[in-house]
């Protein structure tokens, strides 16, 4: 493990990038996935079908293929996302690599978020929506005030699984030139072949910590939602 401890800042930076990918694509996926889920359960048939096609497309395509499409095919088609290079957030420069990786992860994960949300919405008895409509709430109001708050309770366990999968899926970015945790681990083992097992354990612990933080947060949210009943 010496290799890790003597390059600990690199180790931390690598996990920083992993967490960055997770947080940015996680938030984007939750937003996009929720919008898709509202389309899926909503009364507008065009939106309903469009969201269904989206989910079928991205849920059934391997994540690696989506990465390949965005990193290799899109630049050939003229979309290299270089325009994000100038953007600076909190003193940190957005790279086109980072943007593309988040895009790929978001496209993929939002399909799963949508399905988790939809299962949560379906867990809310139909009578709740009818009662909302019967007192004159609009579709949007009955979603926001009646359905989604109740769906949240049923949604937390499947959503946690989706987010844990996302945390681990960030490692696919390693193959496309991002020095996140998995890519950095490969670099370390290449330079210190004798310490492979130690390096591997150190990085595994890093991932375990990230995933445990997600599980713990989900537990806390779940408890809060239950108390709010």
């Amino acid at each position, binding site marked *: 493990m010496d290799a890790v401890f003597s390059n600990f800042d690199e180790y931390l930076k690598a996990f920083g990038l992993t967490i960055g990918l997770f947080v940015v694509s996680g938030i984007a996926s939750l937003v996009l996935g929720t919008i898709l889920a509202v389309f899926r359960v909503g*009364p507008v048939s065009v939106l309903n079908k469009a969201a269904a096609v989206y989910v079928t497309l991205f849920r059934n395509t391997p994540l690696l293929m989506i990465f390949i499409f965005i990193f290799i095919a899109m630049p050939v088609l003229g979309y290299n996302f270089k325009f994000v290079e100038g953007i600076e957030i909190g003193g940190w420069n957005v790279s086109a690599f980072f943007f593309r990786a988040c895009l790929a992860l978001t496209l993929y994960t939002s399909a799963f978020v949508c399905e988790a949300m939809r299962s949560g919405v379906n867990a809310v*008895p139909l*009578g*709740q929506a*009818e*009662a*909302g*409509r*019967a*007192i*004159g*709430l*609009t579709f949007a*109001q009955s979603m926001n*005030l*009646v359905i989604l*708050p*109740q769906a949240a309770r049923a949604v937390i366990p499947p959503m946690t699984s989706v987010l844990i999968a996302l945390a681990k899926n960030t490692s696919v970015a390693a193959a496309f030139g991002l020095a996140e945790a998995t890519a950095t681990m490969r670099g370390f083992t290449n330079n210190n072949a004798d310490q492979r097992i130690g390096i591997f354990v150190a990085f595994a612990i890093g991932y375990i910590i990230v995933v445990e933080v997600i599980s713990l947060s989900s537990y806390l949210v779940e408890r809060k939602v239950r108390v*709010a*009943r």
Partner: protein
Amino acid sequence: MTAQETAPVSAGRGEPLVVLSGVQKHFGQLHALQDIELTVKRGEVVVVIGPSGSGKSTLCRTINRLETIDEGTITLDGKDLPQEGKALAALRAEVGMVFQSFNLFAHKTILENVTLGPIKVRGMKKEEAEKKARELLDRVGVGHQAEKYPAQLSGGQQQRVAIARALAMEPKVMLFDEPTSALDPEMIKEVLDVMVDLAEQGMTMIVVTHEMGFARTAADRVVFMADGAIVEENTPEEFFTNPRSDRAKDFLGKILKH
């Protein structure tokens, strides 16, 4: 199918409020509502009765457009029901609905259940909405439960809250779809008492129920449905003692044996 036998019905108390004309509704192959003609006057209490699957719930639900209709027209206070969007939401606010399974908002307190509509739909201030909600909850006898959640109340109490929730919108007409069918016998009376009160205060009501006691005390008219059609209409007294159609005789024979 028996021909509709319409009797000269008690004069009612006012102008036509809810008018269904030539209403047809299909569920796939099933003709769930067949050429429905029904006029409910302001202040009138109409009880809808009939065997299971005869279309009573469907009829009720078309009046606030929880179900769409295939043909015909439904007007409320002279205006056609809007098709969708904000106008439809506004219409539903004018039509109170009480469901068999109460359908109180499970994640909200009793008080919040009653204030949600007035605040979000009518734009009423919170304090005002709460004051009014407490009055309504007192009126239906559950004022002391205001801070509890629906799951903490008995079925009878929940149904009375549901009535208060509907009344809070100051509806022009109230629809009740078997409001006491899911209740234990000892709770049925407390809900029916609230409904009789409402009727006496002049609320226009359309009530799907098999409670003959309620029909006899509170109803101006009984509408008997079978197989998606209105088969017979009459005053409660006439209908129960002297039904004219065979379907109604048969049906009353069955429920009276219980």
